[in-house]
């Protein structure tokens, strides 16, 4: 009997130790602690940057002095500035680095989910709820998903009243204007309820309605896109064609078509606007680069004879660089090089190469700061550039954002609604 009691005591002691460990170290079902939000520079690195900035902040960079900052520019961006005979006298101003901090909701959801999210062999995301899926990215595809899930205001209106199709050779422009309503029913971080709106049975993660106001023949035309939380599901798209007063279902697998004379197709919007899993990614590393941040669309100017937006600020940041190759061997680009902002995960620059391996297009996206109705700051792209460097033709777009929290529900982002509001 004593032996039996002694044996039982051992078991009880072992169980007690396990229980104590559980209370002291609640490992199971908990995210590992990670520092978030991310900061580009701190400590010694930040000092070095500040030292460099003493010479360069406030300086206007153009073809006369761009060689001096060449190491901080993508090769293509340097080329456009250097070759002013071909691309005009483009210039930008160097501003001091200032951290971009995403809204607290985004950081909170990131910390909750850190370490739980994974990508399968097909490139699909799993166990992701909200926030940034990979706050410490180790692979190229992590950055692609971070960009897709970057901190944006969950219910916003983007107006793009400054869009020009610019033929640099003929120095002629065509004007476009659009307004875009965006709702995130899932993967929400900034507006309650988070992470998802109730009654989202189709699992939509982002719904977008874009309405054209110019040119006259496109006025009234609207597009509706639905993207899904299930990354294996194809996106859905519809178009309200105002001249014939009908909705047309769009084939969203055919995303390479360049229409309306623009220098981008469906996939090119914001640098990459397609399912992440369609590409293979390779992380090329990190690079100090001068990228557009803390800009205001009101300050940006577009001047005929110059290929790019002018009067923008660029800050030195420690960007991630990723190579993306589409899984479709006949895809229009043989490869793309994407640059990501490590603080906002925004895709801020891209080089795109044609099937022959020659540089075809460059994309440049400058970020601006906006204020929601409750005073929260959020960041998003205020100027876009899609430039065909082979044919000297560019599409530039700029606008702002507005908080439309609570203004439109899920039913606003449906084909039935296009039918209702369409003229």
């Amino acid at each position, binding site marked *: 009997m004593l032996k039996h009691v002694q044996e039982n005591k051992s078991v009880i002691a072992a169980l007690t130790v396990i229980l104590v460990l559980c209370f002291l170290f609640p490992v199971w079902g908990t995210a590992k602690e990670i520092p978030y939000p991310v900061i580009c520079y701190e400590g010694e690195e930040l000092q070095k940057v500040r030292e460099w900035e003493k010479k360069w902040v406030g300086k206007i960079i153009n073809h006369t002095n761009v060689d001096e900052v060449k190491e901080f520019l993508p090769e293509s961006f340097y080329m456009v500035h250097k070759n002013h005979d071909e691309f005009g006298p483009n210039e930008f101003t160097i501003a001091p680095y200032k951290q971009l901090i995403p809204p607290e909701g985004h950081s909170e959801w990131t910390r909750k989910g850190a370490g739980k999210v994974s990508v399968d062999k097909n490139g699909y995301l799993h166990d992701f709820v909200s926030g940034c899926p990979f706050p410490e990215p180790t692979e190229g595809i992590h950055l692609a998903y971070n960009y897709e899930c970057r901190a944006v205001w969950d219910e916003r209106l983007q107006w793009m*009243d400054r869009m020009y*199709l610019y*033929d640099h050779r003929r120095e*002629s422009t*065509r*004007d476009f*204007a659009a307004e875009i309503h965006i709702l995130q029913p899932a993967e929400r971080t900034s507006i309650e309820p988070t992470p998802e709106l109730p*009654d989202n049975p189709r699992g939509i993660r982002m719904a977008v309605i874009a309405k054209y*106001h*110019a*040119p*006259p*023949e496109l*006025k*009234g035309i609207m597009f509706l896109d639905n993207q899904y939380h299930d990354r294996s599901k*194809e996106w*859905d*798209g*519809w178009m309200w064609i105002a*001249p*014939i*007063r*009908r*909705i*047309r*279902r*769009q*084939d*969203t*697998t*055919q995303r*390479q*078509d*360049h*229409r*309306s*004379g*623009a*220098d981008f*197709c469906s996939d090119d919007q914001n640098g990459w606007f397609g399912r992440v899993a369609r590409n293979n990614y390779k992380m090329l590393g990190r690079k100090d680069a001068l990228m557009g941040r803390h800009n205001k669309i009101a300050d940006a100017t577009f001047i005929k004879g110059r290929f790019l937006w002018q009067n923008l600020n660029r800050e030195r940041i420690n960007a991630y660089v990723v190579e993306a190759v589409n899984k479709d061997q*006949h895809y*229009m680009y043989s490869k793309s090089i994407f640059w990501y902002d490590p603080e906002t995960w925004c895709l801020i620059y891209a080089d795109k190469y*044609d*099937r022959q391996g020659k540089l075809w297009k460059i994309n440049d996206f400058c970020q601006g700061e906006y204020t929601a109705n409750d005073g929260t700051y959020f960041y998003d792209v205020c100027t876009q550039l899609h430039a*065909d460097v082979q*044919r000297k*033709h560019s599409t530039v777009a700029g606008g702002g954002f507005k908080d439309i929290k609570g*203004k439109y*529900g*899920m*039913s606003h982002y*449906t*084909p*039935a*609604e296009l*039918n*209702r*509001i369409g*003229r």
Partner: protein
Amino acid sequence: MGGNAMKTIFCKIFFTVFTAGLLIHWTGTGVFAFKDPFKLFGRDLDVKGSLQTNLDVRTHRDVRDIQFSSWKQTLRVEGDYRISRTDDLDISLYALAHYYYDFGGSIDDNQRDAIRHEDDGSHALKNYRRSNEIEEILKELYLDIRGRTWEVRIGRQIVSWGETAFFQVADIINPLDLTNMKVWPDFDDLKVGLWMVRLFYTPERMWQNISFEVLLIPPDFQHQRMPPAGHGLFLGNPPMPDNVFGQLIHHMEHDKPGNDWNNFEWGVRIRGYTWDTDWTLSYFRSRVDAGLVARDRGLNQMLNLIFGMPVTDRIFRFPKYHSAGFTFARSIPAIKSTVRGEMVLNFSHYQYGMPGTASDIKSRKLLVTALAVDRSIFVPWLTPLNRMRYLSATITWYHYKLIGHKFDKNTGEYIDWGSGNRDSSRDVIDLMLDYGFYWDYILPTFMFAYDFNGTTTLSYVLKYAPGDHWRYQVSYQQSNEQGRGAHMQDQVMFSIQYEF
């Protein structure tokens, strides 16, 4: 042409150029900067429109020896006036107006004389020359009251139901305006607006995203508009003496149903989204918009008309019918295409036939189905060279089936599809291809419709769109009719349009 005619033409050309010049000037000074709304009594007025000149030249002359079908100047203006806008309610007033003046009779005496002789003299010429009826000028005018999930539109409206464009399947709400006599007219010119109340209800969190639409069309019957007699395109060949054809067209106007509550039309449509497929179910209770001649009563009256005897009863009937429809649209990634389809059953006192044909108005069922496939096509060599611009293609197959109809060899009774065919079914395939060169400055389009039982029509269009406003277009329309004057319908059309 005499001196006075030349002077008239000069004045009219000057008027056209002057108006265009004013528009260019205003645009340059920003007064016509229609990207942003105007302010009218402190509220936004969004305006859009176009000024167009269109010259149609026939490639073959018929017995009338007409060269210029039309030289039409058209002003279209669309306005959206936002009366009130709050978070829960939007109220606006919308209008679409359209005015034209056709100089075709001024530059082609034969056209003018043919209309005068074959139709109702100067009155017919006046109708040909310019918009006269309010229905021609004011296409749409309605008050739009919109809540978060519902909407009411009250006034004159144009409605588009269905998925296909070339032939009407489910899209039968508004009567057609065929006075343009083009195979593929501008959509804005194609339909006659109707006074109606249109209700939408899009409930939140509805199963299968179902939404509802109801049309209530009070008695104000509008018939299909026909071109004047003497025009000679598609109808009125060979010419009939003593303006018989013109009188027939006017009898269609005369014989239309009265405006009493017996002629109330209504429709309902339910829209949903199931298994990645958009679908609609619809029902419409209406009358045939184009008059039909009944064999016993109407035909006798028509013969009286032809032989100069008194017409004592109606020639045309506009029978009532029910129309029940189903449409769907779905993207199919495996074939990189979108498939759209419609199926409509028209039944009860409905008779299909061309206006004026001697067909019994009997109860028939007509089943119309259409299937369309849209695809963006990669053209080897061309697409990569042209900055990855894909060729847009749509192919549609229409099938008409008269249920319970048989051609009677003994009595000779049959239903005329208008193409000479007497079978119980009819098939048409149409194809549309469009492309863009040089950043869509140059836009070619090809349209083709093959009727297995009748005509083939082709249209080649080349549009030049150099900037935001001016559009220059030349197109060729060819209709390979059989046994009805081949190529008499062919024409080259030149158009200059300013969009604002």
